[in-house]
């Protein structure tokens, strides 16, 4: 059985084991309300994580996703406060914010060949500032807490039956993205760009275009998440999303997408997202200090990466030994 499937099964198994333990210890865990809330939290992170996964597949990283959430939320609020454009129109428009951010990131990465990490870190700072700049302010210049009252907008934070809309969108986006990645040429080109950019280019793939694409998609996902976040919170603050990078990274790392690029699929990210949400929810339900959370998350990231890296080295070693053994049986030449 390929390692990725095994790994995924282990994760799913752990998921249910931990879930089982939690429902045993905490009576309020296995209620419909809690499960739906857990799924909602997961979906919030998960939508961003889907975009982030694509960036990782190209062996890049996007540190600006949190700030994109903030800016998008501010853009929406501006639309709300200053225009009469209906929500169904301005919300899709706001999604362009993330796309624009991705364009910006992609430009500096491809054209100047600057390291992805620093570029997106810088754009994170810039976008955070922009979010503040465009925030709706009152007469004294203080940022006003705009309450969202538009029912269509708020509707995004609502449910369809027992399930939150954001969860439906998350799953739907997961399906679409997975399909896109595995079944279109663009998707294949993205994998190729991440696996071996030189070989990809030799085969005629425009790797720059792939890079632009993933950063723009990552921005788009972040913007999408912002819509749901602000709808649920019924407000939008410029601090929204700042600091959410760790959750996204944790979700993707747990899900098994490596930072080295070339491999990774959305379902891994989905599982990782759910697993992370479970851990967080569990910490909450067990009454442990919420401050434990970042410790646990940080610790999990390190442990998971270490195990993955160690296993990869171990597997490579095994296969190398197998190849050597094969060669040895054919080679013996004795010098005169």
């Amino acid at each position, binding site marked *: 059985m390929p390692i990725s499937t095994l790994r995924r099964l282990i994760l799913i198994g752990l998921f249910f084991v931990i879930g089982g333990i939690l429902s045993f210890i905490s009576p309020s865990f296995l209620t419909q309300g809690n499960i739906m809330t857990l799924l909602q939290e997961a979906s919030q992170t998960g939508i961003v994580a889907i975009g982030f996964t694509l960036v990782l597949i190209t062996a890049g*990283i996007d540190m600006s996703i949190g700030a994109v959430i903030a800016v998008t939320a501010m853009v929406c609020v501006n639309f709300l406060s200053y225009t009469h454009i209906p929500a169904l129109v301005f919300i899709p428009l706001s999604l362009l914010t993330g796309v624009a951010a991705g364009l910006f990131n992609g430009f*500096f990465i491809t054209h*100047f*060949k*600057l*390291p992805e*990490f*620093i*570029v997106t*870190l*810088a*754009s*994170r*700072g*810039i976008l*955070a*500032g*922009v979010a*503040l*700049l465009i925030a709706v302010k009152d007469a004294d210049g203080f940022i006003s807490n705009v309450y969202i009252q538009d029912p269509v907008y708020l509707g995004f934070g609502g449910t369809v039956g027992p399930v939150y809309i954001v969860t439906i969108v998350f799953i739907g986006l997961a399906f679409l993205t997975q399909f896109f990645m595995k079944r279109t040429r663009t998707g294949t080109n993205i994998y190729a760009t991440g696996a071996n950019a030189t070989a990809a280019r030799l085969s005629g793939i425009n790797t720059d275009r792939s890079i632009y694409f993933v950063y723009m998609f990552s921005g788009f996902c972040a913007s999408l998440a912002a819509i749901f976040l602000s709808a649920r919170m019924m407000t939008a603050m*410029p601090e929204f999303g700042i600091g959410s990078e*760790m959750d996204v*990274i944790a979700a993707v*790392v747990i899900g098994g997408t490596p*930072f080295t690029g070339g491999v990774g699929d959305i379902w891994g990210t989905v599982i990782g997202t759910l697993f992370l949400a479970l851990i967080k929810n569990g910490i909450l339900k067990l009454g442990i*200090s919420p*401050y*434990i*959370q*970042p*410790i*646990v*998350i*940080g*610790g999990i*990231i*390190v442990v998971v*990466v*270490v195990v993955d*890296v*160690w296993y990869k*080295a171990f597997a490579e070693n095994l296969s190398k030994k197998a190849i050597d053994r094969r060669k040895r049986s054919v080679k013996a030449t004795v010098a005169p």
Partner: protein
Amino acid sequence: MSVVASKARRLLADFRLFFILLLLMAVLTMLSPMFLSIGNLSNVLWSVCIIGIMCTGFIYAPVTGGIDLSVGSMASLSGIIANVLMNNAHVPLALALLITLGFGVLVGLVNGIVTTKFRVPPFIVTMAAKTYLFGIAMLVSNGDTITIMGPQGFLTIGVGKFLGLPIPIYIMLVLTAASHFLLKQTVFGRRAIAVGANEVSAKLSGVDPDRTRIIAYILSSGTATIAGIVMASLTQQAYAPNGAGYEFDVITAVVIGGTSLMGGTGSVVGALIGAVMVGFINNGLNLMNMPASYHPLVTGIVILIALILNQGVTLPAILRRQFGRKDAPK
């Protein structure tokens, strides 16, 4: 190129940064006359010192080709630990500081080992560290803002003066000198640069890259700890989120100073000037009534520009790349 001309060119490059600093000061003074006042400058001082102190150890991470994102969290955590030791456990000052520093060394050791022996990319290790250190800080302090009232010796670190200048300046200058000396004049410094420049070549020359990198991360966390102690003393406060964002300022300072994030070069003096510039920029923005939360906007732009300039990207270079011959021998 004659020896004289190359020396002159190097001198110009070294001082280029200084000229830019002077230019920056001029611009800031124009924008806000209050900039050069004693009151204001002493205000800037403390953030410059903290960034500057962090830079002195942090620089070894990019020099060896890595990065340390945990310095900010480390700083705020060390203030909290120091406080707990001194005021809750009533440990004598010197011992408390020593233990706190020891903790910083331990964190650096862990970062170094995980990134070398376990081959985890530095930014993941240190970013995870940033998160869990923050968590530990929140846990220990319960998320509260703790006011540090004593001991007196501790407060003197941040507030005290010696010969008219605040002590943190001395700490920063001493550490800068020590770090500069370490980088330029010691075996370790040579090895750190070699590992960052070409790890294979360094190995062939007898350098142990793992050991060198581990020491680099220890230094980075160590100075972050010192900066954290200074910060707690200066502000008389221990608050977990206090350190957030410092790693960004430190990276900017170091990049402005001419250190490449790819490894192999490093300028401690440049980083110091960079720290001053970052402090000035932040301060200038404050004076222009831009709240602190906006500062990353400007710093982000600055870092992009600095990176691009560091690469030697100039208009002629861009044109050459577009229209150049594809025929260069490899």
